[in-house]
């Protein structure tokens, strides 16, 4: 049939002119895993509006008692996961705290620098930097460092942010940068990161 032959020929031309590249399966899978892990760590939002105030105050008190000795708490806990605290906060071994401290400083530098860097045409460079830090984040999440009840949700949020930055496109990244910045702001990621980095900065001298 004439019409079918015409369609087949057009289809062949499209496939020839625009061959589909191989799917970056591992890269996509990393993004899927990061996003799902992030969601699992975040409790459902449906009950937050009614409980947020009470929970926030309780969290502030409980966490203040539990980890006040570390001097890390000046912001109320942003996630309700931390409400589940019912004893002294466990501390990771010193070597992991040192590794986390180094990681936090490097990540803070990236988050502070990435919007201007990416907007000035260095998106690929910024994405490569984020990929390195993403690997470190995952190592820390799977290490004893993640038993720290402040650090763990922060790492989880950072994992998602870094996965987004790592996926920045070299071409036209402005919309993506804006979305990432919104996410960072909504979850107060940078403020929490700075607090954690400052607190972790004392690991060297204190122990």
């Amino acid at each position, binding site marked *: 049939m004439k019409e079918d*032959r015409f369609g087949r*020929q057009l289809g062949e031309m499209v496939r020839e002119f625009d061959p589909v590249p191989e799917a970056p399966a591992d890269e996509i899978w990393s993004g899927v895993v990061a996003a799902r892990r992030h969601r699992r760590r975040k409790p459902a939002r449906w009950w937050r509006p009614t409980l947020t105030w009470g929970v926030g105050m309780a969290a502030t008190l409980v966490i203040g008692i539990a980890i006040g000795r570390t001097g890390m708490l000046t912001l109320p806990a942003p996630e309700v996961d931390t409400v589940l605290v019912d004893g002294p906060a466990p501390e990771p071994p010193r070597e992991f705290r040192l590794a986390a401290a180094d990681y936090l400083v490097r990540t803070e530098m990236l988050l502070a620098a990435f919007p201007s860097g990416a907007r000035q045409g260095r998106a690929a460079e910024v994405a490569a930097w984020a990929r390195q830090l993403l690997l470190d984040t995952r190592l820390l999440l799977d290490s004893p460092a993640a038993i720290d009840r402040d650090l763990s949700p922060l790492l989880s949020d950072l994992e998602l942010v870094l996965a987004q930055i790592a996926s920045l496109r070299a071409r036209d990244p402005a919309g993506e940068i804006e979305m990432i910045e919104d996410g960072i702001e909504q979850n107060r990621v940078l403020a929490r990161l700075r607090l954690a980095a400052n607190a972790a900065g004392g690991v060297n001298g204190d122990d």
Partner: protein
Amino acid sequence: MTERQLIDRVLGGDRVAEREFYDRHVDRVYRLAYRLADSDPDLARDFTQDVFIRAFDRLSDFRGEARISTWLHSITVSVALNGMRKVRRWRMREAELTEVTARGAAVTQSEPGMRSRLRAAIRKLPEKYRLVFVMYDVEGYTHEEIGATLGMPTGTSKARLSRARARLRAELAEYAGEWAS
């Protein structure tokens, strides 16, 4: 392992099964996403990622009435079309008109005539025709698969394909000599 057994394992929280499920379907999902993303590999990657995030979230809702690939491809179509609408809106809002015009003109001039005309003609098709053309003629789906994926009778798929081809034939009339008619 059958598809059903694999899904049950995924629903049971088996991480290895999740990856196997993903590996079985990622190439075809990516192909479709790439075609619907105007051949932009970065968008295709983002759409594919979103498809699997949604698929894992909603897998428990899958009742097995259609094939799992059909279910995944309908998520792909939905994610890609919504994503492209946002991308187009954003580009319209953000890009300076002169810059876009200049870039468009440059691309057209540098590409061989037939190739650029074919791309332009496909982009110009209404979405409902373009979808069926891309799925049937380019990616080799059957009308039954298209009907199940897009939630319409196979007759509608055939009719839309016919209209898509007619529009493309008219758009590309000057190249009619390059294919058998």
